[in-house]
């Protein structure tokens, strides 16, 4: 066990955990932040995606100790700002079906837009190709990313 200081959505949180515990489970089972989802636990699907210093990371294969000292943004953090153009676009396009993969899809899209505020279709394909959605919301995900990209470059910003 180790005492870790994590910066999550602009707040500092201290946790007593096995430093190898993946960030996903620290968020979900230790801190009760259940917006970040478990689906494979092996880095294969992106359901657990969070931002680490603004970049997409699969929290199921990211040891908690690795995240120490980095700025962690989760879906809850993004959602603190209801004006976030990406979330607004996602709602406007009514993207979710079952909704389970959606926080991961949104975080993956946020990382893309932060890097590339005006992605072409091929850029969107490349960024989203490794994030499966069993409900097949792909066409609407594409529309939402495009809609957000027209709204300005502030998408990766959570509440701070």
């Amino acid at each position, binding site marked *: *066990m180790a005492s870790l200081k994590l910066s999550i959505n602009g707040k500092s949180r201290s946790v007593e955990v*096995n430093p190898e*515990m*993946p960030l*996903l*489970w620290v968020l*979900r*089972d*230790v801190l*009760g932040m*259940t*917006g*970040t*989802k*478990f*689906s*494979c*636990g*092996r880095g*294969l*699907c992106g*359901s657990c995606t969070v931002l680490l210093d603004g970049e997409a990371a699969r929290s199921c294969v990211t040891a908690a100790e690795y995240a120490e000292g980095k700025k962690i943004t*989760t*879906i*809850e953090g*993004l*959602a603190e700002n209801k004006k976030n153009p990406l*979330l607004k676009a*996602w*709602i406007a396009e*009514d*993207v*979710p*079906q*079952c*909704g*389970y*993969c*959606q*926080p991961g899809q*949104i975080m993956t899209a946020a990382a893309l837009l932060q890097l590339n505020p005006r992605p072409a279709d091929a850029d*969107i*394909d*490349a960024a*989203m*190709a*490794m*994030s*499966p*959605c*069993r*409900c*097949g*919301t*792909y*066409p*609407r*995900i*594409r529309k939402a990313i495009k809609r957000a990209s027209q709204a300005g470059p502030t998408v990766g910003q959570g509440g701070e």
Partner: protein
Amino acid sequence: MSTSTLSRRTFIKVASAAGGGLVLSFYLPGKESMFAGTSKDEAFAPNAWLRISGDGAITITVARSEMGQGVWTSLPMIVAEELEADWNAVSIYQADAHPSLYGSQSTGGSFSVRGSWMNLRNAGATAREMLISAAAQKWNVARTACKAKNGFVHHSTGKKLSYGELSAIAATLPIPHSVKLKDESAFSLLGKRIPKLDTPDKVYGKAVFGMDVRVPGMVFASIEKCPVFGGKVVSFDGTKTKALPGVVDVVQVDDGIAVVATSTWAAFRGREELSVSWDEGKWANQSSRDIRELFRESVKSKGNTENYAGDVDSAFTNAVTTLEAVYEAPFVAHQTMEPMNCIADVRPDRCEIWAPTQNPQAGQNEASRILGLPIDRVMVHVTLLGGGFGRRLNSDFIADAVKVSKAIGKPVSVVWTREDDTQHDWYRPMTYNVLRGGLDKNGVPVAWHHRVAGPSSRGLVVGGSTPPYAIPNFLVDSHIKDTGVPIGAWRSVGPSQNGWIVESFIDELAHTAGKDPLEFRRGLLTKSPRLKRTLEFAAEKAEWNKSLPKGVGRGIACVESFGSTCAQVAEVSVDRDGSLTIHRIVVAVDCGPVVNPDTIEAQIEGGIAFALSALLKDEITIEKGRVQQGSYDDYRMIRFDEMPKVEVHLVQSSEPIGGIGEPSVPPVAPAVCNAIFAATGIRIWRLPIRQGDLKKT
């Protein structure tokens, strides 16, 4: 307007309302009633409530699981339409499976909207009429001078009262004996694109799925099960596991070993250190090849007659041309992105369950059976479902949590790994099918014979195998064999594989007869005018007769399922190295009255993605009794960049309301396979399409 007399089936009652307002309880038929015919009286116990509070808030509580199909929006839309409610005042809640006997709560068979259509309308109309009566009474005027609109009752003089203000008086009035339903042409909400009510929570990460529930004092667990179906624990050693940080306990729960821990991760890790010796049972050496061989042998003899017309044997004798083909479909898994999981809190005298289930009552029964508690001591809360597709009609994952909680005396969240989920599913059946067709001298089909061999469940194997075409002599016969592999409903069930077989083989017959596949079908759809119209609509929208660029092939298919008809035209090309590109899929669907076109389009796109995964990638294989696939790397679904363009066209229809979650699935595989044939001359007889299948030799 049509008048609806409120029958026993409608069963609307004024319920008591804590906190005032008007509450009507009513009954929505479940999926079972489709199959069961007449149900027992208990089945009519209320399972839905409409409440209008003093502040004007309208809440609808239903026992229907939301798994992405949008029922939490479409069901209240139907009530709100008749109620003349202000849509912004409407919200919905999920009903629990609670001590008292509720009516059926299962969600499947694309049945939520179509099964509830009339009863929801009746409930809305009843409340509307009662609110009008309340206003007339308060103003002391004739009812006929009052009109309901947008959350108010208006009087001809211009005065108005809100539903909230009227709800308390309305609650004291008798239920009208009969109510007038709105004419469908007067609908103002139904047929509009209405954003789903649960979307914002899903976008903000606030939506609560099964494993998101938190119960005070709960622990986490995961269960190691025998990799072979039906295997049993002989002995186990949990010493190494117990020494791991975070592990609280290791307990046997009849068919597996549960690791109980302070986090899900610690429970998963603990499983890796377990040593278990299994009695793998009678299926320990079975492989998919053995199952295929079993099926292949069995189709050599006559099977159990499932459906027939005329005299197939003599029709084949007289046929001028005959054609035979073998179609093979593999086991496929559901792969919901939320793995199976459940939370249970078992106490000596009661049990509380939180589960992402399509069938809370089955879970309730299962828990009651395991615990020996009366059914009314088991309460099931239904959470959101991270995908259902038929998988969550089964209650195995609920049983897991109940058993672990019983063993440790604490509330526990039992989570399956992705691999558990893939390897312990209730699969779509693998089947082996021999198809024979006979044509007369004019190329008209006169005989059709489909002999199928498949596992365990007749209904799942045979469903959807009767062709919709007017072929005077046909026979479907079956061999059902036990393989030990659990079989279950998979989005669109029987038609999902039989639609592919029927629509591929009819295409083969059309080509053999030298006829256009569209015209060939049209000529044979004399008994199915609705399916014919849908087929023609798809062909028209896809410009069937327009020539295509060189190398592009076009295929068509049409299937009726779950009360709707769906036809699809696919355009594909195959390049030199055999890789397939699907350029577009044009879809026509007739699902009767359109509730929410936005949801319908989403469901159709989703169904197509689901079906394409099965067509292009999915196959569960078995070796030494074990499922060989585990996660997203070896059991893959179509990716973001592989999703073809989908164009959805809704048929203007006066047909009864049909389902929408499933009917878009069955035509996908045959439309694409028929297009592949048109482009390349290669016929796909075995799913999924494998690397190399499309390479010209």
